């Protein structure tokens, strides 16, 4: 961190770079930007920069990031950037954990990985991948699970370029199969005991559900 507050033009340059290649550079670029924001006072230049950001709609392939569009203040922008940093750090950590597990090491699933998993669920491809992994874990059928995980890993690899190295081998798939039943629950921050309380419930007669009859 420098002692001199960055100029608005420097921030704009960082942000443009960030937008240009977010997947490859997100963590470092976003951190720089956050650091820069941390140094900024609420002044005219900041207001001007935030106003500029507020006109840019960030489209990150369906990721559940609050768009800058409509951001009212500096805190909004900071929150968005922080979520980007957290999510991508978490995702990176997730796959590093998978690699560790593949190598027979103990992997810790941290809260940022949980948060990342939830965030990335809204990405079309990766979300599908994660859901498939979760289903595979739930069914606990080794053959089915491995197959699902490999498909999921490929989808994840495609949709998140930063993890290409981590998820392609059958061996890793096998290890993930061992890791996932417990880890996915932890990653999702969910308890193993399913609570019986349901909000916004929709009840369907189980045997007649194909007719779509619901209460």
């Amino acid at each position, binding site marked *: 961190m420098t002692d001199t507050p960055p100029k608005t033009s420097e921030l704009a340059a960082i942000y443009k770079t960030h937008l240009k290649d977010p997947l490859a550079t997100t963590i470092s670029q976003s951190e720089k930007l956050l650091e820069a924001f941390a140094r900024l006072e609420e002044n005219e230049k900041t207001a001007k920069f935030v106003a500029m950001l507020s006109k840019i709609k960030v489209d990150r392939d369906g990721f559940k990031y609050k768009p800058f569009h409509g951001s009212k203040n500096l805190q909004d922008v900071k929150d968005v950037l922080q979520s980007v940093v957290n999510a991508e750090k978490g995702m990176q950590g997730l796959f590093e954990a998978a690699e560790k597990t593949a190598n027979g090491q103990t992997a810790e699933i941290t809260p940022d990985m949980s948060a990342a998993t939830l965030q990335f669920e809204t990405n079309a491809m990766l979300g599908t991948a994660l*859901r498939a992994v*979760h*289903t595979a874990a*739930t*069914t606990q*059928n080794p053959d089915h699970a491995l197959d699902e995980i490999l498909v999921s890993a490929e989808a994840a690899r495609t949709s998140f370029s930063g993890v290409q190295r981590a998820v392609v081998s059958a061996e890793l798939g096998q290890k993930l199969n061992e890791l996932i039943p417990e880890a996915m*629950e932890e990653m*999702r*921050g*969910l308890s193993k005991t*399913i*609570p*019986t*309380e*349901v*909000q*916004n*419930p*929709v*009840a*369907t*007669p*189980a*045997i*007649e*559900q194909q007719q779509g009859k619901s*209460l």
Partner: protein
Amino acid sequence: MGFTAKLSGSLGNLVYQVKGEYQGNAVWHYVLVDARKLPLFNHSIRSGSVDVAKYGTVLYSGWGDEPPENIVKTIHEQYKKS
């Protein structure tokens, strides 16, 4: 058809799949609703929140939007109407 199978078949119309959320996470249950509590169950569902355990036996539960295929199949096999 054996007695158990006949009984299960007759209970089929009391087995409900309940989908919803718990603290923002999708969750599903299969519940064998107590026939006497069915009206209360229906009312509770419409109220926007339900504790499924209060209205019968929870057969299967899980996180996520949809139950796995094998659970759906098991329920159908076990409780399909004769």
